[in-house]
């Protein structure tokens, strides 16, 4: 294998596995045939083409994951259970059982098993709400729960029981609908599990601790959702984003009372990105033009 072939093979990883197996050789052959003799470094133009082609092929494959509404609900439920697990992760030594159950819930959701995930989410949800409310439930938990790693304030110090309950209720409702559908969902990427430690990371910042990891993830994923919606005109990404936004709004609502707060600015940003994704998916300008035409055309 020449160095050029090896390097182009590396960039072909941008394509989904099935696509690579079926057509990887064909693309590689053409890349090598059209390269000038003696070339060892890939052409940047070809690299850009491979990366954008690979991402497009992945998005096209994602739109074949079953009906958009079910996949969108599954996406939202995955994001919510990932964040819920991330919220408990820094406190694992203090509440090992509940952190483990939360991890299992995320695993069941990611593997597309709503039946299995639903009781786990409801159980960890009930305990989380109890901790946030400061009432005993199931077992004895010494309050406040102090973190071991990644965070520096006690569990749910800045989140009320209502917000915690809203997040779990939304995840539970989505899983209930998926379970009622009576079939498994396609498994989701392991990247969701890999993202949990980042989402759990809360560096101590003056004057308030900042959920920097979670905020960075939310903004990156929502930007990806906008882009994927724009390219595919498919509603699944915006549906997942809306479900997540509802839970995030419940968390931010108590902080929105103070005018010009950072929370308000952040909530506006999340809402704007979600709305952009939804509008991109339904191709709003074209839909609006079609509607106007129908209204203005005499019957």
């Amino acid at each position, binding site marked *: 294998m020449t160095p050029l072939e090896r390097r182009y093979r590396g960039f072909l990883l941008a394509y989904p596995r099935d696509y690579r197996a079926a057509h990887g050789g064909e693309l590689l052959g053409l890349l090598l045939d059209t390269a000038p003799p003696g070339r060892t470094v890939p052409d940047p133009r070809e690299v850009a*083409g491979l990366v*954008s082609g690979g991402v497009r092929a992945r998005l*096209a494959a994602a739109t074949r994951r079953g009906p958009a509404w079910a996949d969108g609900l599954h996406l939202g439920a995955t994001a919510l259970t990932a964040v819920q697990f991330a919220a408990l992760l820094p406190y694992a030594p203090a509440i090992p059982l509940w952190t483990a159950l939360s991890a299992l819930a995320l695993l069941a959701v990611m593997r597309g098993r709503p039946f299995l995930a639903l009781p786990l989410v409801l159980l960890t949800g009930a305990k989380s709400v109890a901790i946030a409310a400061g009432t005993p439930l199931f077992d004895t938990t010494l309050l406040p729960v102090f973190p071991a790693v990644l965070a520096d304030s006690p569990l749910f110090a800045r989140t009320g029981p209502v917000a915690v309950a809203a997040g779990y209720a939304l995840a539970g409702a989505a899983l209930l609908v998926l379970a009622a559908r009576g079939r498994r969902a396609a498994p989701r990427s392991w990247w969701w599990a890999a993202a949990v430690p980042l989402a759990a990371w809360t560096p101590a910042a003056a004057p308030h601790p900042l959920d920097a990891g979670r905020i960075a993830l939310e903004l990156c994923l929502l930007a990806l959702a906008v882009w994927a919606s724009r390219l595919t005109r498919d509603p699944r990404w915006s549906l997942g984003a809306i479900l997540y936004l509802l839970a995030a709004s419940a968390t931010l609502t108590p902080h929105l009372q103070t005018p010009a707060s950072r929370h308000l600015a952040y909530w506006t940003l999340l809402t704007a990105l979600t709305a952009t994704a939804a509008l991109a998916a339904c191709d709003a300008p074209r839909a609006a033009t079609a509607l106007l035409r129908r209204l203005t055309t005499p019957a």
Partner: protein
Amino acid sequence: MYFVLTVLLDGPMHGHAIMKEIAALSGGRVRPSVGTLYGILDRLCERGMITVDREETVQGRVRRHFRVTEAGRDVVLAEARRMQQAAALVMNRIQPA
């Protein structure tokens, strides 16, 4: 897409031939990258504008030959007519020198 459909009107071709023909047709102006070209071919296949005519194995690699379908032929013809009419609007207003 227009160029791909146009060169395929000559008959079935594989990726390399399509690429060469497009470069020749456009005087070297249009040179899609391999990733872009196959993205276009995949989308045209999905929409039924072209189809895989046959596959052959060259040096251990499968190579697809693409063929334009009736629907693809109709679309590229309609597009060419539309552009011809648009060009005629200008041409008819300019006196022959």
